[in-house]
Protein backbone atom coordinates (compact mmCIF):
# COMPACT_ATOMS: atom_id res chain seq x y z
CA UNK A 1 0.00 0.00 0.00
CA UNK A 2 1.41 3.39 -0.94
CA UNK A 3 0.13 6.28 1.07
CA UNK A 4 1.37 9.83 0.84
CA UNK A 5 0.82 12.94 2.88
CA UNK A 6 2.55 16.25 3.37
CA UNK A 7 3.38 17.96 6.62
CA UNK A 8 4.41 21.56 7.18
CA UNK A 9 7.31 22.88 5.12
CA UNK A 10 10.05 24.81 6.87
CA UNK A 11 13.77 25.18 6.28
CA UNK A 12 16.41 24.42 8.94
CA UNK A 13 20.17 24.74 8.89
CA UNK A 14 22.21 21.79 10.14
CA UNK A 15 25.89 22.14 10.94
CA UNK A 16 28.17 19.75 9.12
CA UNK A 17 31.21 20.01 11.37
CA UNK A 18 34.22 18.16 10.06
CA UNK A 19 32.39 15.22 8.54
CA UNK A 20 32.79 13.05 5.48
CA UNK A 21 30.53 12.92 2.49
CA UNK A 22 29.32 9.94 0.48
CA UNK A 23 31.53 8.84 -2.40
CA UNK A 24 29.42 6.01 -3.76
CA UNK A 25 25.71 5.18 -3.62
CA UNK A 26 23.77 2.47 -5.48
CA UNK A 27 21.24 2.95 -8.24
CA UNK A 28 17.70 3.12 -6.93
CA UNK A 29 18.73 4.86 -3.72
CA UNK A 30 18.01 8.46 -2.75
CA UNK A 31 20.63 11.11 -2.01
CA UNK A 32 20.67 14.64 -0.65
CA UNK A 33 23.32 16.95 -2.07
CA UNK A 34 24.68 20.04 -0.41
CA UNK A 35 24.28 23.25 -2.35
CA UNK A 36 27.28 24.93 -3.95
CA UNK A 37 29.34 26.79 -1.36
CA UNK A 38 27.76 25.14 1.67
CA UNK A 39 30.62 22.73 2.29
CA UNK A 40 34.33 23.27 1.89
CA UNK A 41 37.10 20.66 2.13
CA UNK A 42 39.05 20.58 5.38
CA UNK A 43 42.78 21.36 4.95
CA UNK A 44 41.97 22.85 1.57
CA UNK A 45 41.51 19.39 0.08
CA UNK A 46 44.21 17.17 -1.28
CA UNK A 47 45.87 16.74 -4.61
CA UNK A 48 43.25 14.33 -5.80
CA UNK A 49 41.79 17.11 -7.90
CA UNK A 50 39.13 19.73 -7.58
CA UNK A 51 36.15 18.57 -5.57
CA UNK A 52 32.63 18.94 -6.81
CA UNK A 53 30.96 22.06 -5.34
CA UNK A 54 27.98 19.94 -4.39
CA UNK A 55 28.61 16.94 -2.19
CA UNK A 56 26.32 14.04 -1.34
CA UNK A 57 25.77 14.39 2.40
CA UNK A 58 22.95 11.94 2.96
CA UNK A 59 22.06 8.60 1.39
CA UNK A 60 18.89 6.56 1.79
CA UNK A 61 18.44 3.06 0.41
CA UNK A 62 15.64 0.56 0.71
CA UNK A 63 17.31 -2.82 0.31
CA UNK A 64 14.02 -4.74 0.27
CA UNK A 65 12.36 -2.68 -2.40
CA UNK A 66 15.37 -2.46 -4.69
CA UNK A 67 16.23 -6.11 -4.49
CA UNK A 68 12.63 -7.28 -4.50
CA UNK A 69 13.02 -8.94 -1.14
CA UNK A 70 10.07 -7.87 0.91
CA UNK A 71 11.62 -8.45 4.32
CA UNK A 72 14.90 -6.60 3.81
CA UNK A 73 15.72 -3.49 5.78
CA UNK A 74 16.63 0.07 4.91
CA UNK A 75 19.95 1.88 5.18
CA UNK A 76 20.53 5.57 5.89
CA UNK A 77 24.02 7.09 5.94
CA UNK A 78 25.03 10.54 7.15
CA UNK A 79 28.69 11.52 7.39
CA UNK A 80 28.71 13.77 10.46
CA UNK A 81 27.69 12.87 13.99
CA UNK A 82 27.47 16.37 15.49
CA UNK A 83 23.67 16.40 15.19
CA UNK A 84 23.45 13.62 17.80
CA UNK A 85 26.40 14.86 19.85
CA UNK A 86 25.20 16.43 23.07
CA UNK A 87 28.34 18.56 23.33
CA UNK A 88 27.09 20.58 20.35
CA UNK A 89 23.70 21.24 21.94
CA UNK A 90 22.81 24.57 23.50
CA UNK A 91 22.67 24.71 27.31
CA UNK A 92 19.34 26.27 28.27
CA UNK A 93 18.40 28.45 31.27
CA UNK A 94 16.59 25.42 32.73
CA UNK A 95 19.92 23.61 32.91
CA UNK A 96 19.14 21.27 30.04
CA UNK A 97 20.87 20.54 26.78
CA UNK A 98 18.72 21.27 23.78
CA UNK A 99 19.45 20.51 20.16
CA UNK A 100 18.59 22.96 17.41
CA UNK A 101 15.51 22.55 15.23
CA UNK A 102 17.65 21.46 12.30
CA UNK A 103 19.37 18.71 14.27
CA UNK A 104 16.06 17.44 15.63
CA UNK A 105 14.57 17.51 12.17
CA UNK A 106 17.47 15.56 10.69
CA UNK A 107 17.26 12.91 13.41
CA UNK A 108 13.50 12.60 12.96
CA UNK A 109 13.91 12.36 9.22
CA UNK A 110 16.51 9.60 9.43
CA UNK A 111 14.55 7.63 12.02
CA UNK A 112 11.35 8.00 10.00
CA UNK A 113 13.09 6.49 7.01
CA UNK A 114 14.84 3.57 8.70
CA UNK A 115 11.85 2.62 10.81
CA UNK A 116 8.85 3.61 8.79
CA UNK A 117 10.10 3.90 5.22
CA UNK A 118 9.07 7.55 5.18
CA UNK A 119 11.10 9.35 2.56
CA UNK A 120 11.77 13.09 2.42
CA UNK A 121 10.08 14.61 -0.63
CA UNK A 122 11.93 15.26 -3.86
CA UNK A 123 11.37 19.01 -3.74
CA UNK A 124 13.45 19.11 -0.56
CA UNK A 125 16.55 18.28 -2.54
CA UNK A 126 16.41 14.53 -2.08
CA UNK A 127 16.83 12.98 -5.50
CA UNK A 128 16.37 9.42 -6.65
CA UNK A 129 19.21 7.73 -8.51
CA UNK A 130 16.88 6.28 -11.10
CA UNK A 131 19.23 5.34 -13.89
CA UNK A 132 22.75 5.27 -12.51
CA UNK A 133 24.59 4.75 -9.28
CA UNK A 134 26.59 7.66 -7.87
CA UNK A 135 30.37 7.52 -7.59
CA UNK A 136 32.91 10.28 -6.99
CA UNK A 137 36.31 8.66 -7.53
CA UNK A 138 38.22 11.64 -6.17
CA UNK A 139 36.83 10.80 -2.74
CA UNK A 140 37.35 7.07 -2.97
CA UNK A 141 40.13 4.72 -2.01
CA UNK A 142 40.25 1.14 -3.21
CA UNK A 143 38.95 -1.02 -0.40
CA UNK A 144 42.07 -3.18 -0.30
CA UNK A 145 44.13 -0.06 0.38
CA UNK A 146 41.87 1.44 2.98
CA UNK A 147 42.57 -0.90 5.86
CA UNK A 148 45.69 1.06 6.70
CA UNK A 149 46.70 4.50 5.57
CA UNK A 150 49.52 4.43 3.06
CA UNK A 151 51.82 6.97 4.68
CA UNK A 152 54.30 7.12 1.82
CA UNK A 153 51.57 8.15 -0.64
CA UNK A 154 50.31 10.79 1.76
CA UNK A 155 53.81 12.14 2.30
CA UNK A 156 54.30 12.49 -1.44
CA UNK A 157 50.98 14.33 -1.72
CA UNK A 158 51.96 16.62 1.14
CA UNK A 159 55.33 17.40 -0.42
CA UNK A 160 53.71 18.18 -3.76
CA UNK A 161 51.16 20.34 -2.04
CA UNK A 162 53.80 22.34 -0.22
CA UNK A 163 55.69 22.81 -3.48
CA UNK A 164 52.48 24.09 -5.12
CA UNK A 165 51.96 26.53 -2.27
CA UNK A 166 55.51 27.85 -2.31
CA UNK A 167 55.14 28.51 -6.03
Amino acid at each position, binding site marked *: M*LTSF*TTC*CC*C*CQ*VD*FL*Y*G*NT*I*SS*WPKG*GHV*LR*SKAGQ*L*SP*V*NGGSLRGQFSPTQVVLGL*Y*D*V*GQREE*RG*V*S*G*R*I*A*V*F*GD*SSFIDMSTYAFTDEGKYESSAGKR*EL*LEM*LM*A*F*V*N*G*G*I*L*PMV*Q*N*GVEELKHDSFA*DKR*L*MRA*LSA*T*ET*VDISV*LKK*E*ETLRNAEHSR
Partner: protein
Amino acid sequence: MQLQKLGYVVELLRGPWTCFDANQYGSLIISDIEETIATEEVNKLESDVRDLGLSLLVVADWYDEMSLLRGSFFDDNTHSQWFPVTGGCNIPALNTLLDRFGMQLGVQAFSGNIEITRNHKVFHTMSRGHYAHLFYYMLLLLPG
Protein backbone atom coordinates in the same frame (compact mmCIF):
# COMPACT_ATOMS: atom_id res chain seq x y z
CA MET B 1 17.48 10.89 25.04
CA GLN B 2 16.32 12.54 21.84
CA LEU B 3 15.24 9.15 20.53
CA GLN B 4 13.33 8.37 23.69
CA LYS B 5 11.54 11.69 23.34
CA LEU B 6 10.52 10.59 19.87
CA GLY B 7 9.01 7.45 21.38
CA TYR B 8 11.69 4.91 20.59
CA VAL B 9 12.87 2.30 23.03
CA VAL B 10 16.64 2.30 23.10
CA GLU B 11 18.99 -0.43 24.21
CA LEU B 12 22.76 -0.40 24.33
CA LEU B 13 24.76 -3.08 22.59
CA ARG B 14 27.93 -3.63 24.56
CA GLY B 15 29.38 -6.41 22.48
CA PRO B 16 30.15 -7.24 18.89
CA TRP B 17 27.47 -7.19 16.22
CA THR B 18 27.39 -10.97 16.22
CA CYS B 19 25.92 -10.89 19.73
CA PHE B 20 22.35 -9.77 19.17
CA ASP B 21 19.27 -11.34 17.63
CA ALA B 22 18.10 -9.12 14.79
CA ASN B 23 14.63 -10.66 14.98
CA GLN B 24 14.12 -8.76 18.21
CA TYR B 25 15.05 -5.33 16.90
CA GLY B 26 14.04 -2.98 14.14
CA SER B 27 17.24 -1.08 13.52
CA LEU B 28 20.84 -0.72 14.42
CA ILE B 29 22.33 2.73 14.76
CA ILE B 30 26.04 2.69 14.04
CA SER B 31 27.57 5.86 15.34
CA ASP B 32 31.16 7.04 15.17
CA ILE B 33 32.87 3.67 15.16
CA GLU B 34 36.60 3.85 15.70
CA GLU B 35 37.49 0.19 15.87
CA THR B 36 37.92 -2.27 13.07
CA ILE B 37 35.01 -4.50 12.13
CA ALA B 38 35.48 -8.26 11.93
CA THR B 39 34.44 -10.04 8.74
CA GLU B 40 32.05 -12.19 10.80
CA GLU B 41 30.31 -9.04 11.99
CA VAL B 42 30.00 -7.70 8.46
CA ASN B 43 28.63 -11.04 7.21
CA LYS B 44 26.12 -11.22 10.03
CA LEU B 45 24.92 -7.65 9.56
CA GLU B 46 24.54 -8.12 5.82
CA SER B 47 22.43 -11.19 6.45
CA ASP B 48 20.39 -9.37 9.12
CA VAL B 49 19.62 -6.56 6.69
CA ARG B 50 18.90 -8.68 3.64
CA ASP B 51 17.09 -11.60 5.26
CA LEU B 52 15.73 -10.41 8.59
CA GLY B 53 14.72 -6.86 7.72
CA LEU B 54 17.06 -5.07 10.11
CA SER B 55 17.53 -1.41 9.15
CA LEU B 56 20.77 0.50 9.59
CA LEU B 57 21.33 4.14 10.43
CA VAL B 58 25.01 4.85 9.89
CA VAL B 59 26.32 8.09 11.37
CA ALA B 60 29.98 8.67 10.59
CA ASP B 61 32.43 11.42 11.47
CA TRP B 62 35.62 12.89 10.12
CA TYR B 63 38.33 10.83 8.51
CA ASP B 64 40.86 12.88 6.63
CA GLU B 65 44.12 11.41 5.44
CA MET B 66 45.95 14.72 5.43
CA SER B 67 44.85 15.42 9.00
CA LEU B 68 46.05 11.97 10.01
CA LEU B 69 49.42 12.61 8.43
CA ARG B 70 49.76 15.91 10.23
CA GLY B 71 48.87 14.21 13.49
CA SER B 72 51.96 12.01 13.34
CA PHE B 73 54.81 12.66 15.72
CA PHE B 74 58.25 11.32 16.64
CA ASP B 75 58.20 9.41 19.89
CA ASP B 76 61.40 9.87 21.90
CA ASN B 77 60.84 6.73 23.94
CA THR B 78 60.55 4.35 21.04
CA HIS B 79 62.60 6.43 18.59
CA SER B 80 60.02 5.93 15.93
CA GLN B 81 57.40 7.91 14.11
CA TRP B 82 53.86 7.38 15.42
CA PHE B 83 50.77 7.80 13.29
CA PRO B 84 47.14 8.13 14.36
CA VAL B 85 45.33 4.82 13.92
CA THR B 86 42.19 6.48 12.66
CA GLY B 87 40.27 9.74 12.60
CA GLY B 88 37.06 10.56 14.45
CA CYS B 89 35.53 7.56 12.72
CA ASN B 90 37.10 4.52 11.12
CA ILE B 91 35.67 5.08 7.68
CA PRO B 92 37.80 2.45 5.92
CA ALA B 93 36.38 -0.16 8.30
CA LEU B 94 32.87 1.20 7.88
CA ASN B 95 33.29 1.04 4.12
CA THR B 96 33.87 -2.71 4.29
CA LEU B 97 30.31 -3.00 5.61
CA LEU B 98 28.76 -0.38 3.34
CA ASP B 99 30.46 -1.85 0.29
CA ARG B 100 28.30 -4.97 0.65
CA PHE B 101 25.38 -2.76 -0.38
CA GLY B 102 27.26 -0.77 -3.03
CA MET B 103 27.89 2.26 -0.82
CA GLN B 104 31.00 4.06 0.38
CA LEU B 105 31.92 7.12 2.38
CA GLY B 106 34.68 9.39 1.11
CA VAL B 107 38.12 9.88 2.65
CA GLN B 108 38.10 13.68 2.57
CA ALA B 109 36.54 15.69 5.42
CA PHE B 110 34.28 18.66 4.74
CA SER B 111 32.96 21.44 6.90
CA GLY B 112 30.03 23.83 6.58
CA ASN B 113 26.30 23.54 6.93
CA ILE B 114 23.43 22.05 4.98
CA GLU B 115 19.74 22.73 4.68
CA ILE B 116 17.01 20.34 5.74
CA THR B 117 13.39 20.97 4.84
CA ARG B 118 10.55 19.43 6.77
CA ASN B 119 8.26 17.82 4.27
CA HIS B 120 7.60 14.10 4.18
CA LYS B 121 5.69 11.53 2.26
CA VAL B 122 5.09 7.90 3.09
CA PHE B 123 7.31 5.77 0.90
CA HIS B 124 5.69 2.45 1.66
CA THR B 125 4.26 0.71 4.66
CA MET B 126 6.45 -0.81 7.34
CA SER B 127 7.66 -4.30 6.71
CA ARG B 128 7.70 -5.05 10.43
CA GLY B 129 5.13 -4.66 13.10
CA HIS B 130 7.24 -3.00 15.72
CA TYR B 131 9.72 -0.21 16.18
CA ALA B 132 13.16 -1.09 17.37
CA HIS B 133 16.66 0.25 16.93
CA LEU B 134 20.09 0.02 18.28
CA PHE B 135 23.26 2.02 18.59
CA TYR B 136 26.59 0.37 18.06
CA TYR B 137 27.99 0.01 21.55
CA MET B 138 25.25 2.36 22.48
CA LEU B 139 21.76 1.34 21.76
CA LEU B 140 19.36 -1.35 20.87
CA LEU B 141 15.70 -0.58 20.56
CA LEU B 142 13.05 -3.00 21.66
CA PRO B 143 9.46 -3.20 20.51
CA GLY B 144 7.82 -0.06 21.83
